[in-house]
């Protein structure tokens, strides 16, 4: 598998196909192929026969054989991988072992919940961390900055699920701002749905915010000594103008990388947060299918997250090239 990727890579180099996005997408597709193979292989080597486990202990050998043929388990490994993969591309992830329904319909229902949670918490992170990071950099090495640093470091150490529990207690049980465990389905009311998800989203976002603020502060300080900043000041710009129009553009570069990676982290974090707030999202599905050994579901969820990770990689790259023309300039491939 890996060899194929490298071979494709080499062939492309020879062809001098320099269209950046074409190459990028091809290499991402290859990465996805590797992941899918690893996922499939991993669940293949574990002991246990899915047909046997589905029929239970009093199964006759004939029935097992019949079910194995029906599930396609009698075919060689690579053939099965190929069949599975083509079905996955068409959006068919197989049938859940424990519920006997298509995996896609099981996941499809939950997907909007996790996606909304992720988008909400990423937006909060971006909106909050940029002004705060710049503010800390502006007051660098003063008391405000030092207090901010310690607060930041402390917040970074708080696990999101503990924050969730604290929020449940303070805002739910003491202040009654929201009803703990009172999840509203997006089918019932969109506003109620988002209104409930906002609290878990904040719980996920706060540690990510602290991290972003720290990164941005360091990046802004690094930029602050450069010539273009002095020039911008000398042309009569105010500090605010210099910060937001000139420095931010350069300082955002490390942050974009971090945010791109944080998306996958937020999805992983939402698995835990969904338990805290009793949200029936993708995390709940993953956890129950792990404990039920419902492998088609586990495979599908992992593949989906892999797709998200790979797509975020692409988005980060595109943003990079938009923010920083230097990346576009010296491209070696």
């Amino acid at each position, binding site marked *: 598998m890996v060899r194929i990727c*490298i071979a494709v890579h080499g062939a492309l180099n020879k062809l001098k196909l320099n269209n950046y996005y074409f190459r990028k997408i091809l290499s991402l597709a290859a990465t996805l192929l590797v992941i899918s193979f690893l996922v499939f292989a991993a669940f293949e080597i*574990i002991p246990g026969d899915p047909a046997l486990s589905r029929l239970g202990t009093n199964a006759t050998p004939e029935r097992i054989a019949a079910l194995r043929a029906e599930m396609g388990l009698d075919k060689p490994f690579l053939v099965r991988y190929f069949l599975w993969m083509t079905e996955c591309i068409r959006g068919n992830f197989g049938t859940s072992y424990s519920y006997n329904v298509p995996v896609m319909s099981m996941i499809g229902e939950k997907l909007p919940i996790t996606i909304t949670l992720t988008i909400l918490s990423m937006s909060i992170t971006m909106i909050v961390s940029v002004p705060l990071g710049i503010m800390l950099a502006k007051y660098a090495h003063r008391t405000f900055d030092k207090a901010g640093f310690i607060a930041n470091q402390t917040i*970074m150490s708080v696990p999101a699920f*503990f924050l969730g529990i*604290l929020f449940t*207690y303070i805002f739910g049980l003491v202040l009654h701002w929201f009803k703990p465990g009172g999840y509203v389905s997006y089918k019932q009311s969109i506003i109620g749905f988002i209104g409930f998800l906002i609290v878990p989203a904040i719980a996920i976002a706060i540690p990510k915010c602290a991290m972003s603020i720290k990164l941005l502060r360091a990046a802004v300080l690094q930029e602050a000594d450069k010539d273009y900043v002095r020039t911008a000041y000398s042309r009569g710009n105010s500090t605010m103008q210099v910060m937001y129009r000139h420095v931010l553009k350069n300082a955002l570069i490390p942050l974009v990388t971090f945010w791109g990676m944080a998306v*996958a982290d937020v*999805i992983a974090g939402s698995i*835990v947060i969904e338990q805290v707030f009793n949200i029936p999202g993708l995390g709940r599905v993953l956890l129950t299918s792990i404990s039920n050994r419902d492998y088609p579901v586990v495979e599908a969820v992992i593949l989906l997250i892999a797709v998200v990770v790979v797509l975020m990689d692409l988005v980060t790259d595109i943003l990079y090239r938009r923010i920083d023309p230097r990346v576009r300039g010296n491209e070696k491939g």
Partner: protein
Amino acid sequence: MLNSIRKTFRKYNNFFFNFGMIITLVFFVLAVVGCFYTPYNTTEMNVALKNSAPALAHIFGCDNYGRDIFSRVMEGIRNTFFISFFTVLIGSLMGILIGAISGYYGGKLDEILMRINDVMFAFPSVLLALVIISLFGSGTMVVTLALGIAFIPSFARIVRSEYKKQASLDYVQSAKLMGAKDIRVIFVHILSNILPVLVSSVMIGFNNAVLAEAGLSYLGIGVQPPEASLGRMLSEAQSYLFLSPWYALFPGLAIVFMVLGFSMLAEGISAAK
């Protein structure tokens, strides 16, 4: 020996380092003492003390079975501490091995290893650990191993880039000219030069391990009851949140300060440079 220790401490004598050192030492002592002694038996139940508030006899109060929370927090700190320790040990040793070989030799091997590594690195470590746990079942050993494997890519990445930088430096060339074998160059010459980078990444790794372990044990994977773990205590405390909020507060604060101590240490070390 004593002098060199004194010198190192003087070098790192800044607020962050000292603050982090104090917290980490307190937790280390709690973890070690927790192996031999806890004020109360951690599994002994006492119906009369059910959900009782913090008092002099039970400074953190008691849980829903009337067990002393302080003793259980101590045991939880011990478990988290050692699971994280072995996680980082597995992750960093394997990471150093993979990173060193691929960074030092480069070429095709490097490309193959790093492609696999990048794929794994992009995956959140909790998720990776969950996949491994779904394959091999839960339990303390599996969780430690799973987290350890999940932490390999991040170490391998850092170590590889350091080795790539160092491999072309003069001292490596002269060591080679003097006839040092590759193994010696890799593990004696270069390794001792990248130690500062390694130390801070180990500390960050330890923090991530603590947070990941707490998250997993909150989900009920990892240390199994009746043994106490900080994450599981939090999930149990959630049902009694209104009645006894301190049950959730103390294990949570234990996690926070454990992570804070190490991140302050890492901050202090990088500030001294």
